[in-house]
């Protein structure tokens, strides 16, 4: 088993290396400091979302509503500041909204026992629709003077490194600490490995599942703030994009089995690097949007097929509605 997992990570790392070398050799302008920083900056939001997804997937769930929570609470911050609220007030409201959303998802999944896939599919649609219908005046919520200084989170630099990269690194550190070194982290792996055993052993499975979705919502909101700060606006239509597939791609490709209990932050980093390199290379090659979708679709298919071979789900503990 251990050998297998190393192999999977090795394969992904190998593909990454080959792609990286090929792009360096054949794509002028790929391997430059400027482009490398752009690459990392572009994928850092995706990486942060990947961390949120990883927490949930390790616990045998999935969160399709991440893009809604990426768009709506941060969009609300921009909108409220535009309408005259102060930044701290707006941030607190966004935080509370994300918290409530995560609690709602978690409660439905853990206590009402609705499958995670359908819960988050519906709740994400609801949140995005609520934002577009009731909160935002325009599809793209614009920057306003009241946010002066906040763009540092997305555009600033520390020691010459763009902030999004630093923020991603910090988030990785925090999530890794949570998963590897704390009791709730151990519980998340236990639930992912075998929810029945976790339950019988006395693990408070339901509160932990709620915790997973609350953390995912908060991290998703945070990723949205970083995104808004780097582009000086919040295009709320991002919910209608294919971004959620990119997030799933990062997690699965990185080697976190969809059957739960396996993988960690390192896998998210590997997956993010691979996807970032792929997207960056395609952009330099000027591949069209639909062409990029085609490539991503094929890669995602290959990744989930490989995943179900390498991490087969345990028939005896699989439940209806499991992903």
């Amino acid at each position, binding site marked *: 088993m251990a050998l297998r997992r190393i192999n999977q990570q090795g394969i992904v790392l190998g593909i990454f290396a080959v792609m990286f070398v090929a792009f360096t050799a054949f794509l002028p302008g790929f391997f430059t400091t400027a482009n490398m920083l752009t690459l990392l900056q572009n994928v850092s939001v995706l990486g942060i979302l990947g961390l949120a997804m990883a927490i949930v997937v390790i616990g045998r769930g999935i969160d399709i509503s991440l893009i809604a929570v990426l768009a709506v609470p941060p969009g609300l911050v921009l909108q409220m500041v535009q309408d005259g609220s102060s930044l701290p007030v707006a941030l607190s409201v966004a935080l509370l909204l994300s918290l409530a959303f995560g609690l709602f998802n978690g409660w439905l999944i853990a206590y009402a026992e609705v499958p995670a896939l359908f819960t988050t599919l519906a709740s994400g649609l609801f949140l995005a629709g609520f934002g577009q219908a009731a909160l935002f005046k325009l599809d793209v919520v614009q920057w306003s003077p009241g946010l002066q200084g906040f763009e540092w989170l997305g555009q600033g630099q520390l020691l010459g490194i763009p902030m999004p990269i630093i923020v991603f690194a910090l988030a990785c550190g925090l999530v890794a600490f949570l998963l590897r070194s704390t009791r709730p982290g151990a*519980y998340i792996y236990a639930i992912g490995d075998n929810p*029945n055993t976790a339950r019988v052993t006395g*693990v408070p499975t339901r509160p932990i599942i709620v915790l997973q979705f609350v953390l995912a919502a908060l991290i998703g909101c945070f990723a949205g703030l970083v995104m808004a700060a780097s582009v000086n606006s919040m295009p709320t239509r991002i919910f209608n994009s294919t971004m959620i597939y990119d997030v799933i791609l990062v997690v699965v490709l990185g080697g976190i089995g969809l059957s739960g209990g396996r993988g960690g932050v390192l896998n998210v980093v590997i997956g993010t690097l691979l996807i970032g390199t792929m997207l960056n290379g395609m952009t330099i090659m000027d591949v069209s949007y639909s062409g990029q979708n085609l490539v991503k679709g094929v890669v995602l298919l290959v990744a989930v097929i490989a995943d179900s071979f390498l991490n087969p789900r345990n028939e005896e503990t699989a439940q209806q509605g499991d992903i």
Partner: protein
Amino acid sequence: MTDNVLEFRKATKLYSGVPAIDGVDFQLRRGEIHALVGENGAGKSTLTKAMAGVVTLTSGTMLVDGKEVAPKTPLEARHLGIGMVFQENSLVPTMTVAQNLFLGQEKFYNRLRGIYIAAQQFLQSLNFDVTPTATVGLLGAAQKQMVEIARAVLHQAKVIIFDEPTATLTPEEKKYFFDLVRDLKKRGVSIVFISHALEEALILADRITVLRDSKHVVTDDACNFDRDRIVQAMVGRDLSNTLYGKRKTAVRPAGERVLTIQNLKLAPMVKNNSLSIFAGQITGIFGLVGAGRTETFKIAAGVLKRDFFHGGEILLRGEPVRYRVPAPAVKAGIAYITEDRKVEGFFETMSIARNVYLGILAKFPGGRFLLSRKEAQTSGEHWIKQLNVRTISTHAKVVELSGGNQQKVVIAKSLAQDPSVVIFDEPTRGVDVGAIVEIHDLINRLAEEGRAVVVISSYLPEILALSDRILVSRQGKVVEEFSGLDATEEKIMYAAIH
């Protein structure tokens, strides 16, 4: 032409090396009703499954009408004229009776009116009082069974096998079922049925076969049997040379009354069950399938999901408790060690040390927000040594261990929680002989330490070897209590069957 419609010669079926039936000879005569009796795990189900093509024999031959056959699927068996009515219904609950009858035989254009008429005529010819347009899910147990029987007849079965046909029936329905089986016999159909109710076997069957520990014991005409002879044949083991050979010469006295269950109800498995568990001794719980033993203790430990509590009281040291999930029960000191370790026993991709450590975390979360690698390692090593788990290292994954060692890990995970009530559900199922001895020693040690120990087992010698006190469960409640000193296999079996 032979008189036997179905015959087994030296039939053996191994499940990962362990025989479920071992060299069994069996003959079914044309037009007879044949009862199969034996304890849980005696091999009755496996034998009938081999007849119906659900499992294939590891060795030995099966003959239908004197010709050697080897059905590999239930469909092949059906073509040979063998139909089985399963314990769990194999009907589609959302379809109508007629649709179920003709399932798999539909024409490309499946005209409902046509099959309703055909079904009506067919059911009438059998004298079955079932409406063909009724939805199967809404029918009672007896009517569902009728549909299953009708389907077997429709498939022109020469042999119909019933697995516990009367378990879910009311007394009137049972009478009707008996008439039905006799009617089938008149039509020349041979019947095999498994039953735990000896009276039924004696009344209904022409011949009775008794199995014990995977082997054939005796086959004889039903008129030559009585209750005593059947029970003798079911339990008559010669244990003098085995690990179960030594009898208890002293029993531990009852300590504090730790767990009291009063009038516990959970439809349909537990009916007004009342019992008490005392500290410092081993209480053995014996019962046949469907006796509600596991369910009762799963309710007590909060393990049962969707516990639609229908009444009754559970007292832990005099305090009423009612656990909806296992976590508070674990914190209160109740450990339930499952009969199905793959499903809810261990974390397969994790190391032994991690399994044990998770048990500790769940019971004593205080001051353990940050994980301690050192504590995980030392507690893992401690319990591996305590239970003599044979493994290369504490880092070995549980899925890589043998059944016996896996069971030890499951036990270690619970014992690390220092429980005061330990409930073992089939503690030695799928465990090799060496490990059985060790697990039994451990169970005895736990009682010596003053814990209240419960052992649920379907294996009589295990119950007798371990228990200071034996409770016999039948149809959802405890019906008899024996002291470990004067209990015998016969007495217990008498109480367990009905």
